[in-house]
């Protein structure tokens, strides 16, 4: 990128002219990114090693340097445990000069690291987690919730499905906080759009055999069966719904489904399902070009979480460059000021609460016959504009009231 380099030299020269203190604006002489993610557990396919690769690509694509100082990417496995996540974050901040932590898949780990980062005035860029309290009562001034949240997923799918005629719903819900909030968010949207919730069943987490719950869903006579769960639970529920012939008369709506889930299910099983996503690799030329480069390194197409890690870091580097410093307050201000418009997200704006509100996409899973080449999985049904996709700023976040 010759242009970047030239402007870099220019900035460096300018900084030099302005005198000593400005040249030292990058703390410790390095911009250090820590990717803290689930490397081996339940979310390692949708985030994990792919997120680390995305972060490395971002560092390389930015030229390996910001304001003349090298970018270094390190990573660690938080094993989805909040205590491990917060201890690692503390060590990174105190001993290893980490400036920014990216990904933090699993909301509990994000919520554990955010206060540590805020206390040390370092930035967290969340791509993997989905809980809404992250930008609500638990919000911090040094956090960006970049890729998606459960509201955006649930609202997008819920509203669109009702508009397509799916008026009556039954939920199969994972029996813990995440599942219940997913169901709650979706129910509200469904009812607001004129739909009706006929009932629900709370399945223990995790569950491998859903036949019993599917039978109850079938008995409800609802047109749409909402799956308020994630990961392996969703995969098994979809697989068994097919087996029990549910999909002949009723349709499934996955409320939190990733590309990696569809890949492992196969199109024959997942076909026809509606879902909402922040990113699809095959959406346009820019997303295809980036995703193909990613594929060469990871051997899998990127999920929205992995693409989000790349995009959020590019945005961060650009903000550091624009601010002329890696001082967290100034960089956060720049990140909020600059719109996000790249291969990943269109019309993105980071609010005072830290939420990146951008366009989302309602997609339908293709059938094996429609799929023309490997990873050709989604048909984009519609673009959900940013204002509609995400909830308005939550006043329970103290930063919003100001």
């Amino acid at each position, binding site marked *: 990128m010759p242009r970047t380099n030239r402007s870099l030299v220019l900035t460096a020269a300018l900084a030099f002219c302005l005198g000593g203190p400005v040249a030292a604006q990058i703390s410790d002489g390095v911009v250090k990114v820590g990717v803290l993610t689930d490397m081996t557990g339940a979310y390692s396919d949708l985030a994990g090693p792919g997120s680390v690769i995305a972060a490395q690509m971002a560092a390389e694509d930015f030229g390996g340097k910001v304001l003349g100082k090298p970018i270094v990417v390190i990573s660690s496995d938080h094993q989805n445990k909040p205590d491990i996540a917060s201890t690692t974050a503390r060590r990174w901040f105190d001993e290893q000069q980490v400036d920014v932590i990216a990904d933090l898949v699993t909301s509990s780990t994000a919520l554990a690291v955010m206060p540590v980062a805020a206390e040390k005035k370092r930035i967290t860029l969340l791509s993997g987690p989905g809980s809404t309290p992250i930008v609500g009562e638990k919000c911090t001034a040094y956090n960006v919730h970049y890729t998606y949240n459960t509201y955006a997923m649930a609202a997008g799918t819920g509203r669109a499905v009702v508009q397509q005629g799916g008026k009556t719903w039954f939920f199969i819900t994972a029996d813990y906080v995440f599942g219940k909030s997913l169901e709650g968010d979706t129910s509200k949207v469904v009812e607001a759009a004129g739909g009706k919730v006929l009932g629900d069943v*709370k399945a*223990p987490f995790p569950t491998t*055999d859903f036949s019993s719950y599917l039978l109850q869903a079938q*008995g409800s006579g609802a047109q749409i069966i909402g799956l308020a769960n994630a990961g392996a639970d969703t995969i098994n529920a979809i697989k068994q719904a097919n*087996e*029990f012939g549910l999909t002949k008369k009723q349709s499934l709506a996955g409320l939190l489904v990733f590309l990696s*889930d569809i890949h492992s299910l*196969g199109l024959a099983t997942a076909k026809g399902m509606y879902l909402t996503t922040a990113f699809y690799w095959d959406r346009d030329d820019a997303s295809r070009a980036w995703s193909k480069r990613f594929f060469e390194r990871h051997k899998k197409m990127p999920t929205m979480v992995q693409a989000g890690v790349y995009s959020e870091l590019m945005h961060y580097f650009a903000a550091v460059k624009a601010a002329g410093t890696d001082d967290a307050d100034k960089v956060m201000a720049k990140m909020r000021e600059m719109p996000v418009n790249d291969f990943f997200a269109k019309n993105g704006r980071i609010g005072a609460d830290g939420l990146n509100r951008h366009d989302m996409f309602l997609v339908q899973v293709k059938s094996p016959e429609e799929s023309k080449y490997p990873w050709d999985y989604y048909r984009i049904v519609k673009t959900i504009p940013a204002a509609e996709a995400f909830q308005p700023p939550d006043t329970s976040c103290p930063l919003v009231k100001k």
Partner: protein
Amino acid sequence: MIQVLSGQLLIGLINGSFYALLSLGLAIIFGLLNVVNFAHGAQYMLGAFVAWMGLTYCGVGYWWALLLTPLVVGLFGIAFERLCLRRLYGLDPLYGLLLTFGLALVVEGIFQNAFGISGNSYPVPAALQGGTSLGFMYLPRYRVWVVLVSLVVCFGSWFVIERTRLGAYLRAGTENPILLQGLGVNVPLMFSLTYGYGVALAAFTGVMAAPIYQVTPLMGSSVIIVVFAVVVIGGMGSILGSILTGLGLGLVEGLTKFLYPPASDVVVFVVMALVLLVRPAGLFGRQR
């Protein structure tokens, strides 16, 4: 109401068949070798994965997989018994438990590293696709097949061990291996084959489960705890006990899923606690 209930009971019976098949293997290994085989879940996972690999890489279909997979995984079990497990006979069963637990962790770790966490889909074989409507529920043909096969395999195994000469040797070997060896029976070989058979049963169950559940590296660890509870309730080492308890607990679980779903993952352990209070040796176990 009655209709919904019969649907749930039927589903309970289907799940019970899986429990019965898995706990049978565990019970045979414990009853005859006195080894608590914690690797049983990993061996079940291996069965599903070997079937999936056969289909994906070599084009080996379901029916051949049903035959070949238990052989392959069973041989792996025999090799493990010969090389490692054998050295722990006669020691406290805790050593065997630790060794097999370690094996499970290693095998699951390797598969997780190689295949990721989301796993892979295994299709239902063409001949068993579809199903019939019973009025109160839609019954997939494959699930009927699971129940029938597991009943045949379970009671077949029970018959061989409890009612034939071979079974008599096996039981005698547990009671007094030295005496049996003195009578000219190759006891070490018999032990290897017994462990191999237990492992093959786990792998067989894995193949049976592959078209229903996602084939993932951790599919075994999620089911193994329940299966251990089944074996404990049935009476450690009692073969008939583990079969009947497996089926029975499937039914109890099915009922709970209908009456109060949030309790369905603990009901097995509640039953276990109650049974142990009243009969410390389990329902079909003998006091030692």
